[in-house]
């Protein structure tokens, strides 16, 4: 969890200096404790209620791991967003969906 937070912090280090503007959308990977209805309206609403961010389902990694796009509201940092998601029951792990480059 700590590493996820560090990753998220590093991802948005520059953006956090201008917290008055909404940050750009971010892709976040959610690893669930068990398989659930990862894309139904009720679950997306729960994610929104927890984070106050606009939420869209993006794609799957596996049966229990999925990717969502979050548009944080003004004043909410990526670190805070990930912390809020981590506090949700049923979620085993949260991390920013980092880009990997060619070596």
């Amino acid at each position, binding site marked *: 969890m700590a590493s996820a937070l560090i990753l998220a912090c590093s991802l948005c280090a520059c953006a956090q200096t201008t917290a008055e503007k909404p940050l750009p959308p971010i892709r976040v990977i959610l690893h669930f404790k068990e398989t659930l209805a990862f894309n139904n309206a009720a679950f997306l609403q729960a994610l929104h209620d927890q984070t106050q961010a606009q939420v869209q389902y993006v*794609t799957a990694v596996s049966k229990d*791991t999925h990717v969502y796009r979050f548009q944080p509201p003004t004043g909410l940092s990526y670190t805070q967003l990930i912390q809020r998601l981590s506090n949700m029951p049923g979620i085993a792990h949260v991390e920013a969906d980092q*880009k990997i480059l060619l070596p």
Partner: protein
Amino acid sequence: MFAANISKRVTFVLLVIAALHAALAHGALRTVPPERHHWPIGVKPPKNEEPLRRLIVKFKDDVEPSVAHQYPPSGHVRALSLNGRANKPQGVKWSHLKSISAQSHVLVSDVPMSRVEMAALARNIAQDPRVAYAEIDERVYPLSASDNPLYDPKQWNMKAPADAVGGANLTDAWNQSTQGQTLNGAGVTVAILDTGYRPHVDVLANTVGGYDFVSIDSDGSFTTANDGNGRDADALDPGDWNPISSPACDGEDSTWHGTRVAGIIGAISNTQGVIGVAYGARLLPVRVLGRCGGYTSDIAAGIQWAAGLSVPGVPTNPYVAKVINLSIGSSQACAATFQNAINAARSAGSVIVVATGNDSPVGTISSPANCSGVIAVTAHTRLGDSASYANIGTRTDLSAPGGGDGRNHISGDIDYIYSTSNTGTTVPLNDTYAGGSGTSFAAPHVSGVAALLFQIRPTISPDAVLHYLTSAARAFPAGSYCAGRNDCGAGMLDATAAVQALINAQIAANSAPVMATIAPQTVAAGGSLQFPATATDADGDRVSFTLSGLPSGANFDGNSGVFQWAYALPGTYSVTLTPYDGLTSGAPQVVRITVTGSLPPSGGGGAVTWGELLATVLLFMACSMLRRPVATKNPPQRNGQQATPGTRTMRRVIHRNWPHRHR
């Protein structure tokens, strides 16, 4: 027995002479105009070609069932009147060898023919209106690495240490075989998680399936995907050029990275371009990178899909990859999503090979090479020096050829890794070959050798693959940066040592086949004898047999294990049968054969007296004289037709002098 053998030899010689004589008389041995012989692609003409005996005949689809669909297929032979078509004296006896399809059949002649003769015969048969085509059933010879034109001048990375200190030593590995097959990765799927693939002619035939995992960007665009859409079954590489530099991504031309990696792993052995490490392997393109890289989530999904695991919304992968190559990396910790995917793929039996990165640091390797359970590959140069760009660290497993300059800058140590590529700087244009360097090109060497190991033992575990690769690695040469260090991995990749170690282990662990007991055999002289050899193999390997002490006139089929003797000669014999399962020979078994009694005095195939032989010679001499076209010796027949020279007289002589059994 001695007399019988002499008799057969003399008879054979006489028959050949008579045949030539008759053929000359009929002008049958006319010279066939020489022609240029074109061997099909993949067929390497040997220096001294053996005579040919096989012909493929394809009947037209609309050929009447009575001709084309009548079985036994020997009906085809009769329908075509093949016997006698070849420019051979007294014709050639053909028999049906096997069917390729309902309308295609392989015929085999009893007499070997030259290529010219066989080609002439094929042309003749092809003129039959019922025949679609006829062609020589070519023997296909394996191409050598040197037939790939860039192998000798450019592919130092594949060669033995004697030729290139840092070479992966593949030449001797390719000379090995497993289960009777050339060791080239055949039957093994290697997934290439990269920028996608181009249908390059040097890899396309090995390319199977594939999927594009690059999904929508967080801003709702398809900038990364660069193909206008998200995940789909099209794994083609549209190009990953980046026109505008940014802090996160340099501006650059398209890299065709996936195609280059694919060529190193599995470029076909042919007469063009390069040869791949596992040139017979299936290449599964999994597109996870686009413009400016790709997302952790898409790569993790691609890892699991390649390993045959379920990814919601994506069809199941029909080509489960036992080897997954990841020539990617970023300077960060191993993401949990990566680690979970790697764990799942390993549990499914797949090996994940990852490049350590090109950031040059000592002590740190990039992600996902720093994840647990992967094979982390750094790079070395032609002379075996650690490549100047290559990341090394304590989690590095081994080094493979990556080209470029070395950390110790040994004089003249600059050589690249050549592979398949494309000429386009943005969108794809034409096939080409290009040189380059990087750990991206080192990892595919290891993936290719891992495929060879899987070909030898399909059930080998990921840990065992790592063991064979690292335990067989060669030490870094003295004077190179990694000599004596412990953060460069076990040493330099050595394909031959790795596959030989596994083959040796296979032989040691293999259960030898066990033959069923064969009772002593007894048969009356002149009678026929047939019995099968059977064996069981605890490993389920196919068993073949060898036999020594085969009696004269008997036959033995090593594949079926069937012994056949159509005309048993008196005596007692001991034949030794030995089962073989492709790796180990089982205990031999001696079978005693007793042929009782003696051959009937006038029985076929028995001893021929010297008097009979002398009579045969005299007969032939008389025959030769009578065959001369002298009018006085061949008077017109009563019906006015001219007799065939010598024929009538020959019949008379035969009746008078030859034993009745030869009528």
